């Protein structure tokens, strides 16, 4: 009986949490139009989340692309169709690996930074100080960070895919000897706008999810060292699970 009660309790707890996250999202959305009038604050956050994540995104993109080139070549040459490597790598990157891996890296790099920054602002009374200066912290601090993350994610995913395709080409064409002409022409012939759109939609939704989780965890962090630590951990763990779950849903919806 006790186990059942505990199960029920944790179920209602998580539903309650989900409800408050959605409520927070609605609050952010309602505040977004006004925040957009001060784009300098948002562009600062695009720089923080986006530009500062570029190195890790580009490096990871290169290696993921190179592995894709190796594995793809190995698989395709068994069927004698290694010319399709360009097509396979591009579709894999644009539709799937680009958005997903970027989002996972984003959660680790930018998400944790957002959560700990907001958590520390609360712990050091900066949030209360803003409220006392009659400045709405949601409007001034949280929404620009949220929107910055939402805008940065598709840009990062696009860069990831481009570098990844270059990495696949580097290994497939330059090292394994796939014909460069068929690598690029097959890619151009078979990757459609719908594939690219799927990637963009995915990374936009991941951008909303990751940024929302990070700012929620940070804004409502317990204002202690332990609380801020917990908020950053939850940010990464929750983001990773949510990204993979949403990825399945979106992929299924696009098929």
């Amino acid at each position, binding site marked *: 009986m006790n186990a059942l009660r505990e199960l029920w309790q944790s179920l209602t707890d998580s539903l309650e949490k989900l409800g408050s996250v959605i409520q927070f999202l609605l609050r952010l959305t309602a505040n977004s139009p006004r925040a957009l009038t001060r784009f300098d604050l948002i562009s600062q956050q695009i720089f923080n989340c986006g530009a500062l994540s570029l190195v890790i995104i580009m490096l990871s993109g290169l290696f993921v692309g190179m592995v894709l080139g190796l594995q793809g070549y190995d698989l395709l040459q068994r069927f004698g169709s290694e010319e399709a490597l360009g097509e396979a790598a591009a579709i894999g990157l644009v539709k799937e690996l680009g958005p997903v891996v970027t989002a996972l890296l984003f959660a680790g790099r930018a998400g944790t930074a957002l959560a700990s920054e907001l958590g520390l*602002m609360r712990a*050091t*009374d*900066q949030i*209360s*100080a*803003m*409220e*006392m*200066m*009659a*400045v*709405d912290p949601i409007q*001034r601090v949280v929404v620009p960070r949220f929107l910055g993350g939402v805008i940065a994610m598709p840009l990062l995913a696009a860069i990831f895919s481009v570098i990844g395709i270059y990495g696949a080409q580097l290994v497939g064409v330059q090292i394994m000897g796939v014909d460069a002409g068929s690598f690029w022409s097959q890619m151009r012939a078979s990757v459609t706008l719908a594939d690219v759109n799927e990637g963009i939609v995915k990374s936009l939704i991941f951008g909303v999810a990751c940024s929302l989780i990070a700012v929620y965890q940070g804004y409502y962090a317990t204002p202690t060292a332990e609380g801020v630590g917990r908020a950053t951990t939850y940010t990464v763990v929750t983001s990773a699970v949510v990204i993979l779950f949403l990825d399945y849903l979106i992929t299924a919806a696009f098929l």
Partner: protein
Amino acid sequence: MNQASPIVEIRKLDYAVSNRPIFVGLDIEIQRGLITAVMGPSGTGKTTLLRLITGQVQADSGSIEVAGENLRALSRAKLYVLRRRMGMLFQNGALLTDLSVFENVAFPLREHTNLEERLIRQLVLTKLQAVGLRGAAEMMPAELSGGMSRRVALARAIVMDPELLIYDEPFVGLDPISLGVILRLIRRLNDTLGITSIVVSHDVKEISSVADQVFLLSGGKVVAHGTPPELKSYPSETVKQFMGGLADGPVPFHFPAPDYFGELLSRSGEP
């Protein structure tokens, strides 16, 4: 609003945190133009009182009027308008760590006004000069000492020319020089700007030297009220213990615990 009416009027205030009563029927009147100290032992809810006065938390019952406005009846937007007339100094300064000293002081101006850059610069430098830190304008908060942070926060609190300035434990952790500076600033700002100051603290000596009137809180009520000399000769054990810093008295030295010898002689974990 005439000069004689109180700027803060608290009537029959009840407030509890998770069923533990903090205030029971609290009555306080804070007069305009004076420096009012709110004192009391740790845990009596001094900071909570500030949060109630500034509308950060809502009372369970009773009324709080600030500058003629009943806080309970105020919408969020109206509360924000009222807060522009108050300045608050947080215990650790609460400077925005990603902005320089200059930008911290300019922050309320940039958020609430459309003043020209030249004018903002003048206002900010004037306020920084008043706290003696014009030379630190380009420094970042992380480079400041505790006393300096508090002075910058004070400059930020007065940049919108508030009517009411609230200090939360302004003397905690300061060296004697910084302490003297803050004490002088509290007096000088209050008198030269013609504002009202509320200082929450438990430093009897410091407060006695600067406050015009003192409210001593204990057990959720005001136990004594008057000028600092009046409080020193107040005929109450609680007041005597607090003002004299005595270890034992109505506030016992020992936290409530089971019988001492009984607990020592019992086996571990068993009562």
